[in-house]
């Protein structure tokens, strides 16, 4: 062996600005945020893979897509190796390192020493070709925990499906060090040394702790028989059963006997909302998780199937979740049964599972299921580490909590913003990319001349390839074609040979026929920076994957030739355009002076940006008076005072935005004051923080007003005033009705705050007047996360809760002058009649009207008038319009703390866009061939980036190159190819098709 092994520890020694501990979705989000601003990031995780819990899930609610890739930066995306985050994270500023822990953090923020403990994977990635021989020969079999322990895996294995390059790792606990893999490895990539290595990093600016949550292990509560009954599984296990990369390749069969699954039950709140085990919290995501699983499962199981969810409260507290659940129930036929299941039994002598319960009508029902899924949430305990509180460490979550993707992404970006604020205030700089070369233009403009590299590493292939025949085929294509045969293109020697051949030769198009390992991201960069090749002029044919499709021993030469031929044809049609550069205006327009707008403005000013804060009314602060949490109220008041004094923030009161133009980075916007006076401001980005308001929907339940029938908001205000009747007492009976006018059409969404408000009001009344009877009529109490303690406390204090359905809401009778509430108590099974001193109606919130702004900025709104984000899971504070962001009630109902966090996240998105003085934009943009364009304008309508516009006078369609993201929608819609997309012109594709036929 002529070269030394490259160990993981060695790879880390490059300069690192920020260490992110925890490579779940939160960690990845922060890492991308920093990397996009040019900082070098080391992303580590204790686990053997990144992606956290999400690697086990294929689909996410509410749209049942994966969509992880939507987190990747939109700009410069063309230069990334690939765009699927399940395959790995390949940003040039991010180094990922798994089986790695941060063990100590010392020093001051801005200059930290970070100690890492690294467990080697045993496989040198730079040598591994991903052939999988090691896994084949490994004699050790252990249960595959990733796939619910239903199948076995080897001690050397792929930690997650879809990885690219598909380098395996060694599970040292299982490994017997027999050496079989070392012997068989054709590239000598394996070393059997699992000893931890210590690495110390110096000069690190910050450490982000994104620890995430551990999932609850239901084997600890024996009532449901998890671990004993083989057909009782957890929700994450069930994801694997459904997954095409799972233990049954996506076949819906149950673990015990492989019987097709036709009937499934979900049991909610396993390990959560259970004070008996000290779990006085809600895991927040499991309800929607179960609904999603039920929908997908039902789809897979076909018509004669049944999916039942046993629940206590369906916590559909996101903006679009209630409709999703309703659709599941009413359209997709998922059954919802409100019932805490007592236990699961085996049915007679089968593996079927029996659940007995009492239904609404008081009858006992025995149902038999093929499979029972336990909706397990998070573990009670938080993962702790002793350096969490050290200086320079930023924790994404100070309190344990399980969040859905959108909330995690928001929380992550909010932390990124805090880290960057510290960095900016200390005036620290990113480690500049030493190589920022562009390809040599004279080189790329020459007529195509090819070099094809054929890797001889045939030993790992189970199919013969006739290289002579292959060479002849290539020569037949054109005579001047250079062919290079190398042994092991992935090795350093192999790589040197390729480099030399290219540098000495004339070729400006290169096809490498090898395996995925041969060209990793850094080598692709080398092509551009040192050899002058644009990335698009290099193509890699992954011959290993290609040949895998064949039966063992079958001759693959013809197929490989055809593929080579196709790729070469494609390369010949590629063209290159230099990226476009543009200076940016470091001013941000913030629309809305409520808490969200104030937060975004203050934060951006702290980063050195100039902020133009526009408010429609004559004062800032929004619904300040209604804020109940005193700490948050103080925070907003402080911001308010700060904003008015801050020279970097220009406040425009009684002002509206009436017109905007420009592109991300450079915009011009016209403001209009109430006096009619207009002015134009220049800015680089926009944050929409237009807020919302309480909506008085009490008319939907009471026909006439009564001084003692009030809203939850009113009751809160009364309880704050010491001289109010409610505070003074006596109060004999208080009734509250939840979801008044919410969670049913037309306002079919949960407002998130009303349950909390009612509970707080109830607790306060009980504190003041313990003798008062309080009844709360509710549909589902939405105390998600740690606010569950309020629900527990209210119940402990004797507040009575009576559930109702939308088809049988409580009725209010004021005939006798008194307020009588009539309803049905499902627990007693009989009607109830309560005479109330006070009746509080829990009315919700709605967004402020943004129809004028919608015209100006052309964003989308939901059917309820909330501003539609680019992606409700992965890009929650972006709009489809690049450079226009959204936060707060304008987007979704939220608590104030959540609103503020969103404002930070939106500010972070602005930072990513505007931090660099110049932005370079993808050269892959669309253009119009006017000679054959019929000017139908379809392309303008379908463009998601508003990058196209019509010149009405000349009747031609124009493309704004800087706004165009090269998505190709226009080219796909144009019937006669009058619009074409950069290098994806039909010629190339047609010639590929031609050569493959």
């Amino acid at each position, binding site marked *: 062996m002529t070269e030394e092994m490259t160990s993981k520890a060695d790879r880390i020694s490059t300069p690192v600005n920020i260490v992110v501990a925890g490579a779940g979705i939160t960690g990845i989000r922060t890492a991308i945020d920093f990397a996009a601003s040019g900082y070098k990031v080391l992303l580590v995780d204790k686990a053997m893979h990144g992606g956290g819990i999400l690697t086990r899930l294929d689909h996410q609610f509410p749209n049942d897509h994966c969509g992880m890739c939507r987190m990747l930066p939109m700009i410069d995306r063309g230069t990334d190796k690939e765009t699927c985050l399940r395959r790995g994270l390949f940003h040039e500023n991010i180094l990922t390192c798994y089986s790695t822990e941060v063990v100590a953090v010392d020093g001051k923020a801005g200059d930290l020493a970070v100690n890492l403990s690294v467990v080697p994977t045993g496989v040198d990635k730079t040598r591994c070709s991903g052939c999988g021989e090691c896994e084949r020969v490994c004699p050790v079999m252990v249960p595959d925990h990733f796939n619910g322990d239903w199948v076995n895996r080897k001690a050397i294995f792929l930690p997650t499906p879809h990885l690219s390059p598909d380098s395996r790792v060694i599970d040292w606990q299982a490994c017997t060090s027999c050496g079989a893999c070392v012997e068989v490895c054709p590239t000598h990539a394996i070393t059997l040394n699992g000893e931890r290595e210590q690495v110390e990093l110096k000069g690190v600016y910050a450490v982000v702790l994104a620890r995430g949550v551990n999932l609850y292990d239901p084997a600890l509560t024996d009532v449901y028989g998890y671990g004993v009954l083989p057909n009782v599984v957890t929700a994450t296990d069930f994801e694997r059963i459904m997954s095409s990369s799972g233990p049954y390749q996506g076949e819906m069969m149950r673990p015990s006997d492989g019987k097709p699954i036709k009937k499934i039950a979900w049991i909610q709140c396993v390990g959560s909302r259970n004070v008996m085990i000290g779990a006085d919290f809600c895991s927040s995501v499991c309800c929607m998780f179960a609904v999603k699983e039920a929908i997908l499962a039902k789809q897979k199981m076909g018509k004669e199937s049944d999916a039942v969810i046993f629940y206590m409260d369906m916590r559909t507290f996101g903006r679009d979740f209630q409709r999703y659940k309703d659709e599941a129930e009413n*359209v997709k036929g998922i059954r919802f049964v409100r019932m805490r299941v007592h236990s699961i039994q085996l049915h007679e002598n089968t593996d079927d599972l029996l659940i007995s319960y009492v239904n609404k009508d008081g009858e006992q029902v025995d149902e038999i299921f093929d499979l029972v899924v336990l909706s397990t949430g998070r573990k009670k305990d938080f993962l702790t580490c002793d350096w969490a509180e050290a200086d320079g460490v930023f924790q994404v979550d100070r309190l344990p909590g399980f969040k859905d993707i959108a909330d995690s992404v928001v929380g992550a970006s909010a932390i990124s913003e805090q880290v960057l604020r510290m960095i900016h205030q200390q005036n620290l700089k990113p480690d500049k990319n030493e190589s920022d070369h562009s390809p040599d233009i004279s080189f790329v403009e020459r007529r195509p001349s090819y070099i094809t590299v054929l890797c001889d590493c045939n030993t790992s292939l189970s199919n013969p390839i006739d290289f002579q025949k292959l060479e002849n085929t290539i020569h037949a294509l054109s005579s001047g074609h250079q062919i290079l045969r190398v042994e092991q293109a992935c090795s350093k020697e192999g790589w040197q040979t390729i480099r030399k051949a290219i540098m000495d030769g004339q070729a400006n198009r290169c096809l490498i026929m090898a395996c995925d390992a041969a060209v990793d991201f850094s080598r692709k960069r080398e092509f551009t920076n040192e050899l002058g090749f644009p990335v698009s002029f290099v193509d890699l044919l992954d011959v290993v994957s290609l040949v895998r499709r064949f039966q063992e021993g079958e001759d693959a030469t013809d197929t490989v030739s055809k593929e080579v031929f196709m790729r070469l044809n494609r390369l010949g049609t590629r063209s290159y355009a230099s990226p476009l550069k543009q200076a940016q205006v470091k001013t941000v327009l913030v629309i809305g002076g409520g808490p969200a707008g104030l937060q975004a403005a203050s934060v951006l000013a702290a980063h050195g940006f100039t902020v133009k804060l526009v408010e429609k009314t004559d004062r800032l602060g929004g619904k300040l008076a209604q804020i109940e949490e005193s700490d948050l109220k103080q925070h907003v008041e402080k911001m308010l005072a700060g904003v008015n004094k801050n020279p970097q923030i220009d406040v425009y009161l009684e002002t509206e935005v009436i017109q905007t133009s420009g592109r991300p980075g450079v915009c011009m916007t016209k403001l209009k004051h109430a006096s009619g006076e207009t002015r134009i401001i220049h800015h680089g980005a926009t944050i929409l923080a237009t807020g919302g308001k309480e909506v008085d929907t009490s008319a939907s339940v009471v026909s006439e007003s009564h001084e003692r029938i009030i809203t939850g908001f009113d009751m809160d205000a009364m309880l704050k005033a010491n001289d109010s009747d409610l505070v003074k007492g006596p109060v004999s009976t208080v009734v509250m009705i939840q979801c008044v006018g919410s969670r049913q059409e037309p306002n079919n969404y949960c407002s998130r705050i009303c349950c909390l408000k009612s509970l707080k009001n109830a607790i306060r009344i009980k504190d003041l007047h313990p003798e008062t009877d309080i009844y709360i009529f509710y549909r589902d109490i939405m105390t998600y996360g740690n606010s569950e303690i309020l629900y527990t406390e209210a119940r402990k204090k004797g507040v009575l809760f009576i559930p109702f359905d939308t088809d049988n809401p409580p009725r209010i009778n004021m005939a006798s002058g008194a307020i009588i509430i009539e309803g049905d108590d499902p627990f007693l099974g009989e009607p109830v009649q309560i005479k109330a001193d006070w009746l509080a109606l829990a009315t919700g919130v709605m967004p402020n009207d943004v129809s004028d702004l919608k015209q100006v900025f052309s964003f989308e709104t939901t059917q309820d008038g909330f501003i539609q984000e680019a992606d409700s899971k992965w890009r929650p504070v972006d709009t489809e319009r690049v450079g226009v962001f959204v936060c707060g009630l304008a987007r979704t109902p939220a608590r104030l703390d959540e609103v503020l966090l969103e404002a930070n996240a939106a500010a972070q998105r602005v930072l990513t866009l505007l931090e660099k003085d110049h932005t370079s934009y993808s050269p892959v943009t669309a253009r119009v061939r006017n*000679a*054959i*364009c*019929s*000017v*139908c*304008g*379809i392309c303008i*309508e*379908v463009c998601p980036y508003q990058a196209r516009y019509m010149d009405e006078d000349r*009747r031609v369609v124009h493309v704004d190159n800087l706004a165009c993201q090269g998505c190709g929608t226009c080219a796909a*819609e144009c*019937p*006669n*190819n*009058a619009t074409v997309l950069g290098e994806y012109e*039909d*010629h190339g594709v*047609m010639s590929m098709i*031609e050569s493959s*036929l």
Partner: protein
Amino acid sequence: MSTYMYKTKDQNPIDAVKTVLSAMLAKSQVDAVFVAARTPYAKLPMPALITSADKMDDVDPLAPAAPLNAARQASSILKYETGKKIALVLRPCEERALIELVKLNQCDIGNAVIIGMTCMGRMENGTYLKCLDDHEDLSISFYVKPDLQAHITTTCKSCDKFLSPNADITIDVTGMKDGIIGFLPQSEKGETLLSGLYLAREKTSTYREKTIEDMLKTRQKEKEQVMKAAKALLNPLENFQKTVATCLNCYNCRTACPVCYCKECVFLTDIFAHKPEVLFQRAKKKGAIKLPQDTSMFHLTRLSHMAHACVGCGHCSSVCPSGIPVADMFRAVAEEVQRLYQYEPGKDMHERPPYIAYREKNTFIEQGEDR
């Protein structure tokens, strides 16, 4: 449906139409009339743009012939707002095509007056000329003699959209057996125009509704059969290959198609202009290839581009030199596509085409899949 109509004093229905159109021009209600007329050189009526009231002699919109669907010619006049007011006499299929062209930004009909008709169908050009030899007054006798009506095209026989519900005025021919021709106002615009012409106003002919009802029944029955047969032209794939086997790549169908709106068809661009090497290569792979190439590709592409907008006028079949039942093929696919997206071309100019309006969440597609 309007319950009254306007009538001229003319005994001859053709003269009645001419009178109305001339009056519109003479009274400067419109600046021009777009209507089918015989040219001095040919007996077949072609679209004409008439600005002078005394150039009405050869106007013949009721002739059971139409060498082309006039929508595209109409759109060339209406390309953009010119300030000119034009009355267009169109068959229902022409009107529907014109509305599709409006959606595609190919013309502006804000200032146009659409005069539609209760369409009894058209004959193929040859058939028409032959019938004309025997019946000099074919444009009138056609509406009176059922045996002449039997000569209309296969497409017309199975067309169930023979009314012009969107027109401002409909020319009612259902009373022609009694020598009555009426002008039905169908919009405020139409009412204003007609009432300004001092025509006689009376109730619509008593059997208009009955005639339409009977026609619809016959046509729908015929359509069912044609569609059934047409599906066999397409499925399985081999049948489709057989159907288009004799296609010459003359692109007549595309030229005749009123909704195929591209300035230059993609099949005329360099993308399909194969180098000899490519043809040799193709031949070499299979040993032999048929020329011209890409004929199936052409029809499939046109289907994918235009099936949603197909108004079923049948002109593509009429112009095919190889006698390929292009229209049947198109209508069969169009029917399925339009049903799937709940889209009716030419119904409403504000309805957006499915490829713009369709969102993944739209439930009708899911229902479609369930079938």
